[in-house]
């Protein structure tokens, strides 16, 4: 019964989404506050009904109600409860329901916090959000209904894909969707601003917090996906430039560009048209991601059993929103009041350069992802564009963006002093060079790119720190604490995010100094990998709730001393008769020893692949630091939702903080 309630709630949500689209839009045209007010109510009600639908599906999964097709195909009564629950979105239908849940949640959030917005702008934004919701709800109801029944109900389910039976499934998709879908609000705001024909600093102040929320989640979601792939696939790789990964990287790049250019719009009333364009692009990439992943045009672990009707439907949604918003942009953007221009050597000039580099990187990723698909359609030839292409294009452009980051962060608004900034960054530049030269000297004849990346990483991290020091110490040690308190949180956020970029880059550089061995190990045998020795102690078997492990117990030693124990395993799932690799990972300082094994032979020998990955954890820790930076910026009172007026200028605030109490 609850399943039918869920289905019905979803139909009601679609109706509400249509109301949310039409009524406030008409109200805004007529200037009728009552009609405009319907938008907020409809958005919140839509969220409630989608949540009911989601809860109904979750209940069916948790109670293993195999009379529901979705549960029968993707769940199993022996699954641990956590995987029963995360299995709700471990399939096509459920994952689209999660997508819509988050979409409507952001709509409700915008309705709740949008009271301070100009009425017409708010109404138009909610109408745009309603239209996106309606499109995806229709997609679910017409092509991917998760509430379909099955009669007679089977006694046992087909089980969740073993690759997905992992805590990663509980974390990665929700985080990623919060990021993807969060940009929908920014998109809706942009559409509303275009309809209204007005973009100003106030607009940027409303849109930027949503972009920051989305960006934080997207950063964490991409990092989590990368770490999941790293530990679960057993290849020790953390980024494969797989089209699905690219689909998450593109909105991230566009979103990163947006939060930087929106800062220019907010502070200097410039780059307005560009900022609007980026808002459209960021969400368009989210839609392209949804299309690539869900339509089955790509070969990937994310492509669930595909149905051509779905691909066509998503393509229609994609074409409608991207073409529609770009048409709106072409029609309404030219009359927008152009903002001021600015000097090339200034904070805003540096941010414009950052935007150019990030969007070019994004464009090359898009090209590399779609080129094989286009070529196949045109000439029938099938090609793969792999890591070397992306490293040589997007990789280099992103390294260039990293290089300019500390300069931009230290430059003043309006008119910067490049020489002064260079002096301020002297220590950071020197630090980067020392790291570079030291690494080249120590690892003579070793990797070339890794020391450069490490030097650059040191420069980026020290650059963020030196800016903090320069701001805090400006008036001597005795004022430092007061000045630190007086600095706006958005400054701390920026410093943290940029520091995080350096941390991630350092982790990436560390990979270049790693080691790798493949060996067939017998019990008692030792293998050297990097500075450590891995010894195979025993080989045994172990039973789990719905699987059986062949476990190789290993110890890691350094100079004969025991350091850590790992248990890489082969996990055999009975329901689907499939096997997965459970890598054994030991985190030692910031590096990791990573071992994955093959099926043990009859004589007890275990084929094993051993890696030493120095500083690997920094790759993901850096992303966490970046997200923390976004969170700090978000907490800045200047960006609070509905802040009535601009808070004191940062300089004035800093001055006030520095005054003796």
């Amino acid at each position: 019964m609850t399943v039918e309630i869920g289905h019905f709630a979803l139909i009601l949500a679609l109706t509400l989404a249509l109301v949310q689209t039409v009524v406030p839009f008409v109200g805004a045209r007529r200037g009728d506050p009552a009609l405009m007010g319907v938008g907020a109510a409809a958005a919140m009600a839509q969220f409630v009904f989608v949540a009911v639908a989601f809860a109904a599906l979750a209940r069916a999964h948790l109670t293993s109600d195999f009379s529901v097709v979705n549960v029968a195909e993707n769940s199993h009564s022996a699954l641990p409860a956590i995987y029963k629950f995360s299995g709700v979105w471990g399939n096509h239908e459920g994952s689209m329901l999660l997508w819509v849940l988050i979409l409507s949640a952001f709509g409700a959030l915008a309705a709740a916090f949008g009271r301070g917005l100009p009425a017409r702008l708010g109404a138009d934004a909610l109408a745009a959000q309603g239209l996106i919701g309606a499109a995806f709800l229709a997609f679910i109801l017409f092509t991917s209904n998760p509430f379909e029944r099955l009669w007679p109900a089977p006694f046992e389910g087909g089980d969740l894909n073993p690759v997905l039976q992992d805590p990663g499934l509980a974390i990665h998709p929700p985080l990623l969707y919060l990021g993807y879908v969060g940009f929908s609000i920014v998109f809706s705001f942009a559409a509303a601003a275009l309809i209204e024909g007005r973009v100003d600093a106030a607009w940027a102040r409303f849109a930027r917090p949503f972009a920051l929320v989305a960006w934080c989640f997207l950063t964490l979601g991409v990092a989590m996906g990368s770490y999941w792939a790293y530990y679960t696939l057993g290849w020790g790789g953390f980024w494969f430039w797989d089209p699905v990964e690219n689909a998450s990287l593109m909105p991230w790049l566009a979103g990163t560009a947006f939060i930087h250019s929106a800062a220019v719009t907010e502070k200097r009333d410039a780059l307005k048209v560009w900022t609007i364009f980026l808002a459209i692009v960021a969400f368009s990439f989210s839609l392209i991601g949804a299309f690539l992943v869900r339509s089955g045009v790509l070969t990937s672990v994310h492509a669930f059993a595909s149905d051509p009707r779905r691909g066509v439907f998503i393509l229609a949604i994609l074409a409608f929103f991207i073409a529609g918003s770009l048409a709106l942009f072409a029609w309404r953007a030219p009359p927008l009041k152009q903002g001021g221009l600015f000097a090339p050597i200034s904070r805003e000039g540096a941010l414009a350069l950052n935007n150019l580099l990030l969007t070019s990187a994004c464009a090359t990723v898009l090209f590399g992802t779609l080129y094989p698909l286009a070529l196949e359609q045109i000439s029938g030839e099938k090609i793969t564009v792999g890591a070397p292409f992306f490293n040589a294009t997007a990789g280099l452009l992103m390294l260039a963006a990293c290089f300019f980051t500390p300069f931009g962060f230290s430059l003043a608004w309006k008119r910067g002093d490049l020489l002064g900034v260079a002096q301020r960054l002297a220590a950071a530049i020197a630090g980067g060079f020392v790291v570079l030269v030291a690494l080249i000297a120590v690892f003579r004849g070793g990797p070339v790119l890794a020391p450069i990346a490490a030097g650059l990483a040191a420069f980026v991290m020290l650059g963020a720190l030196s800016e903090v020091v320069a701001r805090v110490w400006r008036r001597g040690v005795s004022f430092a604490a007061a000045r630190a308190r007086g600095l706006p949180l958005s400054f701390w956020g920026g410093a943290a995010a940029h520091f995080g970029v350096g941390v991630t880059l350092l982790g990436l550089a560390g990979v270049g100094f790693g080691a790798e061995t493949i060996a067939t190990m017998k019990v008692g045998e030792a293998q050297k990998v990097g500075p450590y020795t891995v010894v195979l102690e025993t080989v045994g078997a172990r039973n789990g709730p719905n699987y059986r492990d062949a476990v190789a117990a290993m110890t890691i030693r350094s100079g004969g001393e025991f350091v850590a124990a790992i248990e890489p395993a082969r996990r055999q799932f009975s329901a689907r008769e499939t096997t997965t690799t459970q890598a054994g990972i030991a985190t030692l300082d910031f590096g990791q020893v990573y071992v994955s094994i093959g099926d043990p032979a009859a004589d007890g020998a275990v084929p094993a692949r051993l890696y030493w990955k120095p500083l690997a954890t920094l790759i993901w820790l850096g992303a966490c630091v970046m997200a923390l930076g976004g969170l700090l910026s978000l907490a800045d009172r200047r960006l609070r939702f509905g802040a009535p007026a601009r808070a004191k200028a940062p300089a004035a605030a800093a001055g006030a903080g520095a005054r003796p109490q």
Partner: protein
Amino acid sequence: MTRKGRRLALIAAALGVAAIALGLALYALTDNIVFFLSPSEVVAKNIQPGARLRIGGLVLPGSVTRSADETIDFAITDGKNQIEVSYRGLTPDLFREGQGVVAEGALDAPGRLRADTILAKHDERYMPREVVEELKKEGRWQEGAKP
């Protein structure tokens, strides 16, 4: 700097970065593209040793031999022709005889591939799309049937 000068500087920077990106992309395209072929296409096109390729098909039943140094030899077939593949490393979880597989590497002799990457399907309902299409072309694919 005048307003005109500032606008020019911005446009020049935009064009400059775009040109660099385009240049990098074109340069990278020249030697980083890998073609996907079926065993029959490899034979028909008379691909020379040294070229990087992806070959997709089914693992020929009975062709898999594993040796002590973690080298695995097997043949990829599309029903008409087959290519010998040699690969050192652990095979993917779902690598099995008779199953769909994609191998990437370079030919070291005509009809022999030294692979550095092996991709297999991720679950029993899934098969690399390229393999499905090759099998459809060869008329060995039944829609909906479990491969």
